[in-house]
């Protein structure tokens, strides 16, 4: 529950960074779909399932696992960060880039086929969810 709430904060901050990088449409989509729909659904499910302490998985070595995995992952992260630091980027310039009209033109000219495939994918996900829920009902 707490992690879901802090996840909302993280997503909203990422949305702010999108706006800073000139993605105004992406900012709106991030706020509406991620923070508004996905995480709210997670919170809804958490409250709907009424999870108690004994329903949570028993993780006795949680802190140890997290420390161990952080040690394991940190060299790769350090390599990537040093790679990024060795590159030279121009400082951030805030100008009129990435307006909604331009994104729409790009989406409906070069990306028409992936756009339509996304709609088919969403339809497949819908059917899959319905089948998952229905199977559960038949089992009882």
């Amino acid at each position, binding site marked *: 529950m707490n*992690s*879901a709430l802090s*996840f909302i904060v*993280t*997503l909203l901050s*990422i949305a702010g*960074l*999108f706006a800073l*990088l*000139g*993605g105004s449409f*992406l900012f709106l*989509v*991030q706020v509406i*779909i*991620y923070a508004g*729909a*996905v995480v709210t*659904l*997670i919170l809804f*499910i*958490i409250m709907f*399932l009424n*999870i108690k302490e004994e*329903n*949570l*998985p*028993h*993780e006795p070595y*949680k802190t140890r*696992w*997290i420390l161990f*995995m952080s040690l394991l*992952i940190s060299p*790769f*992260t350090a390599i990537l*960060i040093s790679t*990024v*630091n060795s*590159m030279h*980027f*121009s*400082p*951030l310039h805030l100008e009129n880039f*990435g307006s909604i009209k*331009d*994104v729409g033109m*790009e*989406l409906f000219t070069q*990306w028409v086929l992936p*756009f339509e495939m*996304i709609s088919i*994918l*969403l339809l497949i*996900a*819908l059917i899959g*969810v319905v089948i*998952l*829920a229905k199977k*559960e009902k038949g089992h009882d």
Partner: protein
Amino acid sequence: MIDIGSFFILGILLFSIGIVGIISRRNIFVMYMSVELMLNAVNLILVALSHHYEDLNGQVMAIMIIAIAAAEASIFLALFVMLFKNAHSLDANFFELLAQEKHND
């Protein structure tokens, strides 16, 4: 002064946190949120690159990733409900049990 490199560093850090979360936890909600965190890190890097090259393709790719993440969210939530009804726990290890019980029938 902020430059694009700091966005990359933030994206890399978020991705690493996501990997650590998905490997070291067994709570399925935390695993799902780690996956979403990794997707968001990739989104951030894509948008930073699209700003760097002044090319809108990166932003369109990020929109596609968000749409796929929405589809993924619906399936994950259906799985949560199914898992909780069957097992009354949020342990991801229960999925192994499901596969074995099918075999015994």
